[in-house]
């Protein structure tokens, strides 16, 4: 999972002016919560560009969780992220778990003066809006696994079992993963910093 998330995020954020997602990519990843439980994520990765905005509802309509990503080296990207959060809270599934991810922590680790969004600010916003919060690096995969593990843990257990959380690892084949509605969790990665 890390690998693909990393490649996704690297493309979307490390060099956003040259390359960014065209349309949306659909990925599936499985994460092991503990020995008993694995969660299969079905992930829509979108660039969050304005011209695709009317498509966004299709991605979050049946989603159980959403990761909204901003760029900690660009203050304006947090504002974009906030408007996405607002839209999700208004439009999406009412039980949706929203996580806020401040990306490019690797860049700031190297050059601290590049930071444009203080951690405390974003954290405070996340707390009052009821979001999970991590500062991540797409490049080094820092906190990416933690982020998804936190989401997986926060999924209500009954929802999780309904929605395709697998039982003990050995019985994985018994789980119906045939249709999307019943198979796992959709995370819309809406990247604020590309807007």
């Amino acid at each position, binding site marked *: 999972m890390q690998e693909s998330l990393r490649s996704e995020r690297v493309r979307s954020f490390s060099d956003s002016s040259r390359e960014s997602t065209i349309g949306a990519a*659909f990925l599936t990843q499985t994460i092991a919560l503990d020995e008993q439980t694995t969660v299969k994520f079905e992930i829509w990765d979108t660039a969050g560009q*304005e*011209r695709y905005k009317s*498509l966004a509802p299709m991605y979050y309509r049946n989603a159980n969780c959403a990761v909204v990503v901003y760029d900690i080296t660009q203050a304006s990207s947090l504002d974009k992220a906030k408007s996405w959060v607002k839209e999700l809270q208004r439009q999406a599934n009412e039980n949706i778990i929203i996580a806020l991810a401040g990306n490019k922590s690797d860049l700031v680790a190297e050059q601290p003066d590049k930071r444009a969004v203080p951690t405390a600010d974003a954290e405070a916003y996340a707390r009052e809006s009821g979001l999970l919060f991590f500062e991540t690096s797409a490049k080094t995969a820092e906190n990416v696994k933690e982020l998804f593990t936190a989401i997986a843990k926060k999924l209500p257990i009954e929802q999780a079992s309904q929605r395709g959380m697998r039982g003990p690892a050995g019985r994985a084949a018994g789980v119906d993963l045939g249709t999307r509605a019943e198979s796992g969790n959709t995370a819309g990665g809406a990247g604020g910093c590309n807007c």
Partner: protein
Amino acid sequence: MSKKVDSTRSSETQSPTVESGNQNATTSSDTSTSDRCDEPIDSSLELRPPLPPRPSLLERGNTAAGGSLRLSKRAARPQLQSQATTALSLADVHTANRLETSSPKSSPASRAVSRKPSLTPSAHQPSIAVSEVDDGASVRSVVPTIGTRLDGESTLGDLIEGAATPAFKALSAQIERANPFDAVLAEDDNLSTQMQHEFQNVESMNKDGQNEEALLNIWKAKLKHFFILSASGKPIYSRHGDDQLISNYIGVVQTLISFYQGAKDPLKGFTAGDARFVMLPKGPLNLVAVSRMGESDAQLRTQLESLYMQILSTLTLPSLERMFSNRPSTDLRRPLEGTDVLLDGLADGFTRGSPSTLLSALECLRLRKSHRKVVDETLLKVRSQNLLYGLIVAAGRLVSVVRPKKHSLHPGDLHLIFNMLFEAGSVKAGGGENWIPLCLPGFNNTGFLYMYVSFFSTSEGALSPEAERPSSAGKDDELAIVLISANKDSFFELRQMRADLVAQLEKNGSMAVIKTAIRKGHASCSDITPGTVLKHFLYKSRGNVQFTMPSFEPHFHGLIAKRKLMSLYHNLHDSIHSRTAHLKVQHTVAYDATALAWETPLFELYCVASSNASRAALVAGANKVVSWIRREEERVFIIGGAVF
């Protein structure tokens, strides 16, 4: 220009497909098309003024029939049998040199100053400048072709000793190299040296501007530039250099364009030094190409058209027009954000030289007729409800296509898709599966379609899209399944179709056949036409709007050799497509190659051989190619395709 010629000619050849009752069918199908397309994506949905009137349906129906890839069997087959001839008729033969063919193009009527680096800087008096150059051109009867002495004589066929004198032959035998195109000669134009740096990025300017001059020199050394600016002069796209670096030049371009627009006499092109500038106004946009690679105006204009289509593909025409009618000073870079890679991919393709763009045609993967039939039938069998077009594409070559009866596929649209998938890299970098809204301007420039894309590596055992594709996988072994729908919610439906399709293709062995064909690559020229002097050729079937060619190896290695070959093809193409040319056959001799262009209502053929090949041998080779195509037509071209 060549595009215009193309479309009129192809409509001639396709006329049998347009029956009397067919016009209605086309019209009604277009109506349903616009209905099925979604409205353009826009966040400011509420504030939108009424859409501009749609172009008349009839008109669109016509254009669709004209320039599009109509994979109809009837279009080509009967004609082929009755009309194709492998014999070149004498009446069609002209021997013309480059100067003669290119100078009439810059006649006052075309309003463009001659492409020759003229000594007349008075570009604002083009008619005078042109007539001067024309005079000079006709006086300077430099003959690069050696064979022009044979005016009324048979210039082809049974020519003894061909074009060259014995002395020349002896000489050329001495200078003959194994692969002259591979050699980088000192006296070569700057192409060879500059080509290596052509695709490197110009860095951005330092804050203090100290490196400006160095960067400008790098920037100016580029062989080719593309600029897109808005009618009010705002930069939208430039292949090389950032805003800071190019803003002055954009200003100059804008001044030039608006000066002539003010005079109600738009500037189409001019030459400065060794660079040719070509302008293409498109609604609220101006597109500019600057090339030092010797392409004709028409060819550069085709390239600009393609960039424009890419912009439409991102925005749709109504949305583009609305933005500029609301605010003429709109900064289009914002809505186009993220599509630079696509424009760069197209631009670099043109700089490298793309047979597909030159010929406005597609290339197909060579498959046995029976194998292709199985693939077609599989596509039809697993076709899902909301599918509009389905494509299987291998390394930029079409394997199979499934389409509704009423809709053909426009080569320009397919070129945009192929560019997105295989050149720009941003789709396949995502791995997995993709869902991409896009407008196919040749199909319908007013609305979006939705494209499901999934890539496979054809290397062993990596067929699951979830398996990590090896990063080393070259673009030559990539297989993409592209499913296009007008319904934006049909992702999961098409995803299921992809799964069914792959399972079926695996089961009936087609997948293995396709993979083998991909791995085999292009056949070499000596396999196709054994015993001839040919080193490379391009064959375009006009009825099918498709082309085929042999491998570049073993004669053309690397970027520069290929580009030189493509430049030669561009010259040949230009000489039989320039407006005043009535050439059917063009024979050219240069120090590194002899070449032949031959066009009939059914096909265009361009052949290249080494410089000491006689004309007769070249013609023999050309005839061999034609008979090979006749034999293999249903393998190298998709004729019909899967239609529902």
